[in-house]
């Protein structure tokens, strides 16, 4: 097994002198695969020391200690002393839609014109060759929710796996939800253009009413199977009313979140709140209404100068205490989402247990995105989406990913940054 490992490492170093275009998506792995001797973090809070995972044709078949391993014709990856986690999930992102963030418009496809765009689909613009994807994979992020922006209703997101040739190949769950952004209830600062409304609350409520009116018409339209004039926008909302899609509402302010709760009450949608930086103020209310939350960014400043200086770090633990289903995201524009696990790590210093923090970037995200039947934890029946780290994946000192598997395929951890590293170690004779 050791030998096998060494070959893999050697292979990676060989590949490194090539350009990133030579980093290939892994081929399907048929047959049995065992990952042995690892500390297995299931993703649901449980930990199995010195455990083994049995994988058959890409699916997890069994997890436990001392599983029997057949003598031949199986692949065994011994990860003795290492930590094994479910593949991390980046739940809300413009990955593959936005390459160079600022001032290179040609590489930006994340935000469409128009206000009510339920028929827009992010998946069709998802670029599997984005240079960012491999960097994320090397940190253990294996799945992502590709999300459109812009307008009030931005369109539908899809979940992708991060080792693919093209977007059809990448799609893990197509069109899992529709995204909506609520208007602000906060008075903008003086001197803003356009001039701030005299009553921001009233203006926001008018806007909400306009959206509700649109949804009511869609609902009526969908009562009839055929139409003389087909309305693609209304058609695109069918999944919401059928509860086959979730409504992801981007909202931070308390008043916005109250409106989100109201959408559940009127339309019966499955609502998830994204952002939710002020959710700690109404955690109980969210729990009572069974609203799940995706916190966008742990590493943020407090909203007000009077707030506890560590408020954004501890919001997750306050939600946990209230029993709200939540997951963590990394939407940091400059490090480009590679610090998802460290966002989770920070919440541990501010109240969560390590396993709770892990769950917030694995199983909880899977539940919220509607893919927990297939991934999010290392449990029998699920896809073998697995990450192996040298040590604690939440702490940067030891968060060094050594293996990653997507649907049982061991994927390359190579990326442009590693290649440039190798290139200059070579230049300076440092290796």
């Amino acid at each position, binding site marked *: 097994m050791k030998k096998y490992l060494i070959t893999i490492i050697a292979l990676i170093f060989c590949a490194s002198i090539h350009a990133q275009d030579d980093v290939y998506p892994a081929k399907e792995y048929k047959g049995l695969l065992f990952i042995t001797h690892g500390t297995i973090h299931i993703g649901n809070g449980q930990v199995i020391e010195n455990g083994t995972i049995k994988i058959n044709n890409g699916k997890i078949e069994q997890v436990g200690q001392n599983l029997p391993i057949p003598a031949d014709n199986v692949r065994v990856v011994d990860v003795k002393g290492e930590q094994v986690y479910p593949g991390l999930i980046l739940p809300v992102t413009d990955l593959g839609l936005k*390459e*160079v*963030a*600022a*001032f*290179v418009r040609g590489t930006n496809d994340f935000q469409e014109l128009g206000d009510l765009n339920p028929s827009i689909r992010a998946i069709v613009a998802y670029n599997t060759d984005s*240079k*960012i994807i491999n960097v994320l994979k090397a940190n253990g992020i294996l799945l992502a929710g590709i999300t459109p922006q812009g307008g009030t209703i931005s369109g539908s997101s899809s979940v992708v796996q991060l080792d693919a040739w093209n977007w059809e190949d990448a799609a893990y769950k197509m069109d899992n939800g529709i995204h909506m952004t609520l208007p602000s*209830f*906060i*008075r903008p*600062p*003086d001197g803003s253009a356009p001039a701030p409304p005299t009553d921001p609350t009233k203006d926001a409520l008018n806007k909400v009413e306009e959206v509700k009116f649109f949804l009511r018409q869609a609902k009526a339209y969908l009562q009839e199977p055929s139409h003389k004039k087909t309305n693609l926008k209304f058609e695109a909302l069918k999944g919401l009313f059928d509860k086959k899609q979730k409504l992801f509402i981007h909202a*931070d*302010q*308390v*008043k916005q979140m109250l409106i989100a709760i109201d959408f559940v009450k009127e339309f019966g949608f499955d609502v998830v709140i994204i952002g939710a*930086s*002020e959710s700690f*103020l109404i955690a109980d209310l969210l729990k009572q209404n069974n609203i799940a939350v995706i916190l966008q*960014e742990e*590493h*943020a*400043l*407090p*909203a*007000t*100068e*009077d707030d*506890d*200086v*560590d408020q*954004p770090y501890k919001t997750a633990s306050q939600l946990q205490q209230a029993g709200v289903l939540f997951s963590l995201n990394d939407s*940091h*524009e*400059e*490090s*480009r989402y*590679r610090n998802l696990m*460290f966002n989770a*790590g*920070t919440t*541990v*210093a501010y109240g969560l247990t390590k396993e709770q923090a892990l769950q917030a970037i694995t199983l909880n995200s899977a539940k919220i995105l509607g893919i927990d039947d297939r991934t999010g934890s290392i449990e029998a029946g699920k896809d073998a989406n697995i990450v192996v780290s040298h040590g604690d994946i*939440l*702490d*940067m*000192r*030891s*968060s*060094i990913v050594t293996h990653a598997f997507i649907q049982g395929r061991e994927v390359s951890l190579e990326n*442009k*940054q*590693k290649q*440039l*590293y190798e290139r*200059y*170690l070579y230049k*300076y004779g*440092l290796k």
Partner: protein
Amino acid sequence: MRIFWLNSRKNLFFLAAGLVSSVMSSKAQETFPINDIADPREKIFAFTHATIIKDGSTTFTDATLVIREGKIVSAGNNISIPANAVVTDCTGKFIYPSFIDTYSDYGVAVRSERSGGSGFYGGSTQFNSATKGAYDWNEAIRPETDASKLFVTDEAKAKSLRELGFGTVLTHYKNGIARGTGAVVTLANLNEHLVMIKEKASAHYSLAKGISSQSYPSSMMGVIALLRQSFLDAKWYSTRPAEEGVNLSLQAWLDNKSLPQIIEGNDKWNDLRADRIGDEMGVHFIIKGDGNEYQRIKEMVASNAAFIVPLNFPQAIDVEDPNDARFVSLREMKSWELAPTNPAAFEKANIPICLTTSDLKDVKQFLPNLRKAIDNGLSEAKAFDALVTTPARLLKISDQVGSLDAGKLANFLITTGPVFNEKTAIIENWVQGEKYDVKPEEWKTIKGIYNVEINGAGTSSKYILDVQSNNAAKLIASDTMDVKFSYDGKLVGLSYSLMAKTKKDSSAQTSRSLIRLSGTVNGSVWNGNGEDSSGNRVTWTASLVKAGSISADNTKKKTPPVVGKVLYPFDGYGWEELPKPENLLIKNATVWTNEKEGKLENTDVLVKNGKIVQVGKNISDASAKTIDGTGKHVTPGIIDEHSHIATTSINEGTQSVTSDVRIGDNLNPEDISIYRQLSGGVTSSHILHGSANTIGGQTQLIKLRWGVNDEELKFKNWDPFIKFALGENVKRTSSSSNNRFPDTRMGVEEVLMDAFQRAKDYENALKAEKPGTNTVRRNLKLEALVEIMNKKRFITCHSYVQSEIVALMRVAEKFGFRVNTFTHILEGYKVADKIKEHGASVSTFSDWWIYKMEVLDAIAYNAAIMQKMGLNVCINSDDAEMARRLNQEAAKSVKYGGISEEDALKMITINPAKALHVDDRVGSIKVGKDADLVLWNDNPLSIYAKPLKTIIDGTIYYDIDRDLMLRKNIIEERKRLVQKMLGEKKSGSPVSPPKPSYQILLGCGDHLEHNGLITINKIDDNTTNQ
């Protein structure tokens, strides 16, 4: 033209017109032809039996004031009254010199327009002034502006000020940084010629650009630099340099030098900035404040300046909705509560002040606010001084106004009582011997019980009328009825209905059923006519039965209201009293020394007098406070090489070379980021100018001494640095219409070559200059560059791609110096060997990339490669959020590139100390160094670590336990103030809508910041980064 005298309305109109013309003609000017019959009058008036407040210290009772031809003849007791004087009996009345407003724009108001921006993110830059003529290059430098030439009387405005008791104002054109001269004018309704009593009384300056359309300056630093340079330019111009030709602005600057110099600070920190400019340039400024000076009154005392203080106290905020109230900061609520204590704070500190109506949204608020100030501790004597004596003295017009001494202008008030009492009314305001009625009805009270008799066609009815004030009376018949009553000093009117009040419905009182009477008052007897409820004519009389007592003002002196404490900083996390250095002994901790001893287990650190005095085992010291460090870690304080916190502005991005601007000129020691970063273990931050231009501004190293003032924030005895920048930002990639040179990296290099060449030539010219002749224009921009070439100032340069890095190094080498630090330097790994050879330090982000084109090749292994190549590597934040997790950022070099934990910690402590030339004092735990220490609960490189205490110079500025206490205090104090504001709203006082207290987060313009809901990211004063 025929005049129909029977038309009574017209009649009145002509009467009024006649009065006006007589006023004008009686003071007609000699040179003006008369289109009328000359009506010369001597205007001799005597006011007798009054209480006369002659000046701040002299009061006469039962005294007489005599005026003649607009001037005071005499005031006091035993004064002979000229036979030809019109005598007014002022029994019970008070006479005061009228007030002087030192900060008015009366008659010279500025039209409001938007000022020019910097063009950083879009628009173009306007490089030149839009002012035509032989004037200053900068549109905001306009010392030639002469208020006396712009001044036009404005009776409506004059009247509103007279009603408050003002008689004289200093007015100036409130636009620009150098604003020219102010004129002293009275508020008389006379020709401009006559009201102007001093054409050039003052020279005005400000720290605000005004309506200049020119782009430069766009920041507070730029304003200060421009002011300083202009002072120097004027000095140089006094030698009449041929190359300048005629510069009317600089000439005016010189001409204005002997006048009282007034500068508008408009904020406590700006006040101090203004004062420092004055100190440097040898000018003793009178400072126009903002009203928040009470928050730093000690510093105001130290400025030794006199202040002009507005009374624009904030309104209570409508905090009814808790979701809106959440965004109103404690700072704002406290400001509301404490603003009225500002004048008293000046008095207590013994600082001379003038009060002004300036900045009030509605000047009518002046007297109520003045009374509020008095309720909050301002003495009436000080108020009088601030409105009369001090302004006259400071403006050097005491020969004309400021007391009722003989020979001065007859500018005085007749009041019903002590002038600042709530119940006192100003009856008349005399300006230059002209009478202006304010509340003439207050001459005599008509309060009392009257018998009213109404006689109609054969009927007669009698009532008793109880007159309570000039606007309120009750009619007593079989019942007591409310009457609509009015008395304006001459005419009395009343109307009432005799219909039974079955309903409380006022509409029942139709005009048909109303009895309406009007009449004149002649002593205690009134006569008049009217109509009864059926429309029949009636006549009526009223005669006084019993006079109402002239109620002496019995409003008791209120005890000052209970208010919260001033905190330093003025923020929930501020101190009531600043913390002091302590002797501290941290016992039994893991000590990361950063010295050759490395990481020491179970070790003690002893701190005394702000220094580390001992590191070792089993140290004991009875004088020291012991802190148990068991299971904990001690590291040197974190030093952030690249930060943009704690300032008022960060980018002067309008020109490509702005080496004259200085971050140190505009520190903001109250930025909450300081406290937040202390909580992350940061003790020193290098505050850099932004990256908007090739040669940016001078930087400032600070220690995060939370609570001190701006000067005390500075790291003492530190080699000065300057910020340079290269690449996308300086060529304005973000702008679609850049017109500022350079537009490419080719141009950037040439900007550098040109600037240093000019600096070289400048240095040579200075060397050749005959000492003391001042023939070479002092150039603040080039002076900074000369310092760089002489290794007295050091460069930290924002840089990304390899080409530009190498180009700058070669420019530096050509001019004989080295680049001290490359900051960001995300492609540093590509040219690490060349940087090493050049001898620069590097300071980088841990893992940022691909947020713009020039960081496409940025890699997280950058720090590791550069470290392996032997460079002095720092990890910096450039981000107010990330700065509180710099330990985590350093730890990433363990993950990316396998740097050891100890070396990783050095990247945020001793390495930046070296890069900043302060490693002899900070950056490691070594005997003799500053006690800048952090006590951590865990391995500081771990994501689970957080600081328990952050110590600077032996003073504990952050303590996790105190932080918990402060959180509770904030909740309590907010609760108290919310209740107080709700009470204010309930009492019917006007409240302002709940505006969020937006926080400004300054950034260099390079990338997004990660902040909460009510934070505004700003690059400079005009550009918001969204």
